[in-house]
């Protein structure tokens, strides 16, 4: 494998793995805070016990998110040094601000929340989990702004003296239409994940503990959690559809090849009759795509590639159906190619053009990851509706192997959908690392040999694999224990045992 392929695999493995924990952290920090707020407001024991129970599952997950997140911050410089050098003036700031504003808040207040049950007043202690939740949100804003910039590099200019992109307007970076739709889409997906996590675990316990003859108070608590989780899942599902649609419309303009590949468009349409393909080549509903993306004109992958090779990277104007110049950075880059008489294909492929004959993404990956993201995500929403039906009025489903399987699959579905979403986002942007400006190959660290990258990707994969087994074992162990007994929360004297310790 070539060095860039291994480095891309490494980024893919470490990032998809990291993002298994991120959406649960984002949503479960809020849902735990909501449960604790409910306890503070109503004084009902059930809410405190749910807070403690789901809080602990949240923390087991949070630890993995933290440690795998450190790798993210470092690997840009380690594996992608020339990318970092090129974009640091714009891309570095959100990463630094994410750490400074979000990570400090998140980690300090999580520590205060975990260990502060018996040292803080109830109100202050509740505030700590909300502040930690705010930290996770702020973090997501910065990192999605940074990623959205890679998809659509606005607010920047090219500095020929330094040979790099420079920040022109922070406001423009934050007003990036891709960011404004991608962030809500990510958050909706996070709540879809958290809702499924909460509801499925609670349903499993409701069924199991009912059979074991648990007290009515316990069953009531589980039922509350099922309903809360299922509603969060369904509402977030609707939210992810709406935001996904808006994001798709933006991407049709800013990343036409990504969307053309996602819909397998092999011939251009200018008549509003572009059909939708559920499977490759199976045309359904002529005009559906035009309705979906709000344009009569749909350009094909081969046509787009031809335009790129002739004129440099172009965006797409959906109202005129014509290719247009991209943002400032993309335009400046395209004209510098022309001035220096460099062909795009030469730039994208480096010294060996036979190794990558395309200026477009891998179409199979784009097509299938897009469908799997939507399909699996919607399956999860369907599961949420089923859970509401099964537990409506005072019903409790009977235990069965099918029910257990359902409870196991439910939290996995959104995780799978999220992973395909990111695979689509990142692989659909190829062959660019910064869309239309910097080819991925060019971003690689020239000073890092194939050996060290192989070594690190193997060790990461093995270590992450082992940690995944440990994490799942711990989660299952604590899920099976069910709700903790009735707990008291009081400020402790100096010689008393703490109410929580490692």
């Amino acid at each position: 494998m070539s060095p860039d392929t291994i480095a891309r695999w490494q980024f893919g493995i470490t990032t998809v793995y990291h993002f298994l924990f991120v959406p649960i952290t984002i949503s479960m920090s809020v849902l735990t805070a909501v449960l604790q707020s409910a306890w503070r407001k109503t004084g009902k024991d059930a809410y405190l016990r749910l807070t403690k129970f789901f809080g602990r599952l949240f923390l087991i997950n949070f630890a993995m998110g933290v440690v795998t997140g450190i790798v993210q911050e470092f690997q840009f410089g380690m594996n992608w040094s020339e990318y970092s050098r090129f974009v640091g003036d714009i891309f570095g700031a959100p990463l630094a601000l994410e750490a400074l504003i979000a990570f400090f808040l998140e980690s300090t207040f999580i520590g205060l929340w975990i260990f502060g049950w018996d040292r803080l007043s109830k109100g202050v202690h509740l505030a700590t989990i909300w502040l930690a939740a705010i930290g996770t949100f702020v973090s997501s804003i910065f990192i999605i702004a940074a990623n959205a910039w890679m998809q659509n590099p606005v607010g920047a200019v090219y500095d020929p003296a330094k040979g790099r992109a420079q920040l022109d307007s922070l406001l423009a970076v934050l007003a990036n239409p891709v960011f404004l739709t991608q962030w809500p889409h990510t958050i909706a997906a996070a709540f879809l994940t958290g809702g499924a996590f909460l509801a499925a675990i609670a349903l499993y316990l409701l069924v199991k503990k009912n059979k074991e003859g648990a007290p009515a108070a316990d069953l009531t608590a589980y039922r509350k959690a099922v309903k809360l989780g299922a509603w969060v899942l369904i509402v977030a599902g609707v939210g992810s559809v709406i935001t996904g649609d808006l994001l798709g419309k933006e991407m049709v303009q800013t990343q036409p090849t990504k969307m053309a590949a996602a819909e397998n468009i092999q011939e251009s349409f200018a008549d509003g009759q572009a059909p939708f393909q559920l499977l490759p080549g199976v045309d359904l509903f002529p005009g559906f795509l035009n309705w979906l993306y709000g344009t009569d004109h749909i350009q094909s992958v081969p046509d787009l590639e031809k335009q790129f090779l002739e004129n440099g990277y172009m965006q797409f104007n959906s109202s005129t159906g014509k290719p247009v110049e991209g943002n400032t950075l993309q335009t400046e880059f395209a004209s510098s190619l022309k001035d220096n008489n460099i062909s795009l294909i030469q730039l994208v492929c480096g010294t060996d053009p036979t190794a990558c004959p395309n200026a477009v993404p891998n179409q199979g990956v784009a097509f299938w990851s897009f469908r799997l993201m939507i399909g699996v995500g919607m399956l999860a929403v369907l599961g949420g509706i089923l859970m509401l039906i099964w537990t409506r009025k005072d019903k409790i489903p009977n235990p069965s192997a099918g029910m257990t399987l359902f409870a196991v699959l439910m939290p996995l579905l959104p995780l799978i959908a999220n992973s395909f979403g990111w695979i689509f986002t990142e692989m659909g942007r190829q062959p660019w690392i910064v869309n239309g400006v910097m080819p991925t190959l060019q971003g690689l660290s020239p000073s890092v040999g194939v050996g060290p990258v192989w070594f690190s990707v193997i060790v990461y994969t093995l270590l992450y694999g082992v940690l995944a087994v440990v994490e799942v074992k711990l989660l299952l162990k604590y899920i099976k224990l069910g709700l903790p007994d009735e707990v008291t929360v009081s400020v402790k004297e100096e010689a008393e045992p703490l109410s929580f310790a490692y």
Partner: protein
Amino acid sequence: MTIFDIPASAPSALQVVWLLLVAVLWIGFFFLEGFDFGVGMLVPFLGKNDQGRRVVINTVGPHWDGNEVWLLTAGGAMFAAFPGWYATLFSGLYLPLFLVLLGLILRGVAFEYRSKVDSKAWRTRWDWILAIGSFIPPLVFGVGFANFLKGLPVGPHTTAFGTEVTLYTGTFWGLFMPFCLIGGLLFVALFLTHGAFFVGLKTRGEIHDRAQKFGGTLALITGVLALALVIWGNMAYSLPGQLSWLRLVAWITGIVAIVCIAFAWFMNSKDRDGWAFIGTALATVMLVVMFFAHFYPGIGFDNSVNTGLPIDLTTASSSPHTLTLMTIAACIMVPIVLIYTVWSYFFVFRRRLDTKNIPSLDVTTAA
């Protein structure tokens, strides 16, 4: 010649401010994570049984995660303010940084997962993972900073796309020169001492006494290593363009660091836990300042053999626009972070711990 002479291609005020801010972030990291690295390494040695080990771990329980963020912020700040520094350094030191990441992953998970299963084998395994995970990063950082003081060799490189960049030209094994190994050992010894004094400050009873004893011996070793590094480093190495008054600063801070270690040792022997901890804390701060006094203007790179574009404070930096925005953010956020960090340490988690404070197993694993 005045001692405050300014070199011909002077970096801008903003670039100097950001070098100082990067230094502040590394100081925050080593000051805070320094003792929790030490605590992590000491867990198997200070606690004779599970209860004892849990006392040791819980001294940093609420804090280690926040402490680690200083490193992420330092890395992020280098990326944002000096992309050239971040790019050349992080790719050049690929394997050492990979080792740091492995250490940080292992220790983070160990903190969180150790207490989750009530089994001796499980806990002993995580104790050692915690200790090793806490040992690797300071060792690598110590070797690294000693190398930066010497100056990492860099040279020009033409990429396959025809761009000229400045990259690290040394090898992995070339990082482990004797002087640099002293740096690694010093960081390990210093943080062990710092950690022992932190445990001394935060505990009572048997654990406290053992930590004091360990700390006393470790302080002596640290003092000897610091003496060697400060003298060798300041005598032997000075990178091109270093200002004479900064050389003086490096000497002074280096010597003050040694004095602080001696002070910490003395206060520890007088049973003054707080002063002993302040001693190692100040020694850590002084040593980082000493290193950074060597980073102007070459940010730890040796450009003397570099025939291409030199990589320094001026050439590696971001645009004034980005630096200005980042400065505003830092001026607002750093004080806020310090306020809630101080609140957490000094107001919420103020008490000393002993084995009586450790809840029984079923509280943590079953309740």
